[in-house]
């Protein structure tokens, strides 16, 4: 791992995970969009990181969020699921198993980045809301929550990744 990468990951951690905790209950748009941007950190971890480590890290990260929101296990299970299938999905999307591949907006390009991120965020959010709801009752409300929250989280993650890119360009 290069130093640049570590700095970038620390930056992601600060903006996506640490900021999530104080704002967890307050960032809600129109009662349907509940963003969980911390999932961005899990998705943007380097894809060369061994899978065993990735899912363990995702588990504890999810648990951290759980402890603060009184939902023990819910965020942890969703995060582990997404972390497990992340790399396989990346290979499907980008069809090149480049070791040097960089999980950023710039490297992957907008369409591939979106195709990589959106379905995984959707699955993560769907698992969380279904578990929290204990099933599929009020399916319409549930679906709108999942969809809007997915878009909101994706928007926040994009903002954070783009801010890192522009920092680099300035130098």
């Amino acid at each position, binding site marked *: 791992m290069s130093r640049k990468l570590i700095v970038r990951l620390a930056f992601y951690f600060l903006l996506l995970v640490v900021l999530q905790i104080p704002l967890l*209950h307050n960032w809600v748009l129109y009662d349907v969009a509940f963003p969980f941007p911390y999932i961005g950190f899990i998705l943007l971890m380097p894809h060369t990181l061994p*899978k065993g480590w990735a899912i363990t890290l995702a588990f504890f990260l999810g648990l951290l969020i759980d*402890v*603060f*929101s009184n939902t023990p*296990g819910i965020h942890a*299970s969703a995060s582990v699921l997404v972390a497990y299938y992340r790399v396989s999905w990346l290979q499907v999307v980008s069809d090149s198993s480049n070791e040097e591949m960089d999980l950023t907006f710039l490297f992957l390009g907008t369409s591939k980045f979106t195709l990589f991120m959106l379905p995984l965020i959707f699955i993560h959010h769907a698992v969380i809301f279904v578990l929290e709801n204990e099933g599929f009752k*009020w399916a319409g409300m549930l679906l709108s929550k999942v969809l809007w929250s997915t878009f909101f989280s994706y928007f926040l993650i994009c903002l954070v990744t783009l801010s890192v890119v522009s920092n680099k360009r300035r130098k």
Partner: protein
Amino acid sequence: MLQLLDFLYRQRIFLLFLLLEGVSFWLIFSYNHRYNTYFMNSSNRVTGEVSDAINNVATFVDLQRANSELAQENLILRKLLAAQSTKSLAEISAKDSTYTLALGHVVNASFRKSKNYLTLRIDPMDSIRPGMGVISSKGVVGTVKSVSEHFATVASLLHPNLLVSGRVQSNGALATVQWDGKNPLEAELKYVPRHLEMDVGDTVRTSGFNSIYPEGFIIGHVSTSALKRENPFYLARVRLATDFTQVRTVYIIKVTDRKEKESLEEEVQDE
């Protein structure tokens, strides 16, 4: 045997995945059933302190509103006191002996999720226990779920598993108030029998039958009520008296004769 070990070794990541998911689901399913699980939720020392620090910033902005609310409450209490002074001292103290109140500061609260909790900062000297009722100056808030030394997690009235026994003031009917997960301002009012009259705006108070809340605390006011031909009970909703988006200071009710009451009731049930 060696092949089996080899297989397990090759599948180790998948097995780790299953293990982690298993632990997660065990946490999910056990959370609702265990009594005092404070290490895994917001009444834990570390999360409590962090929430408290965050809340300090938020309350500072909100001080003026909190102040005027407290002044209002003071006014009501003073009026009450003035009314009480006409009664004899024995009467007042007799009334007070059934419960005492302890103060709690809300450091974290949710109200938009399907199960909502509040985290309170409490005084360790108050010896607060899970199962105690929580009220605010406006009305019923919830029930203590778990307690650590300085913090308590409260399952709020906006938690579908919390049932509060209430009484409709106008007709004396016993009813159950339960949140249905839709609107953080309203809950369902169940089991009001159809032969009694009930109007929109009637006050619903705690009945005092479940020894968590003493009799007479406001739960809310009836906001809609309908009577369908096929139903034995009213289909009614109450507008909750407590505004869960604003609640800052709460009181924890310690019912002093609770043990006596419960043991007496158990005795009767055993027979």
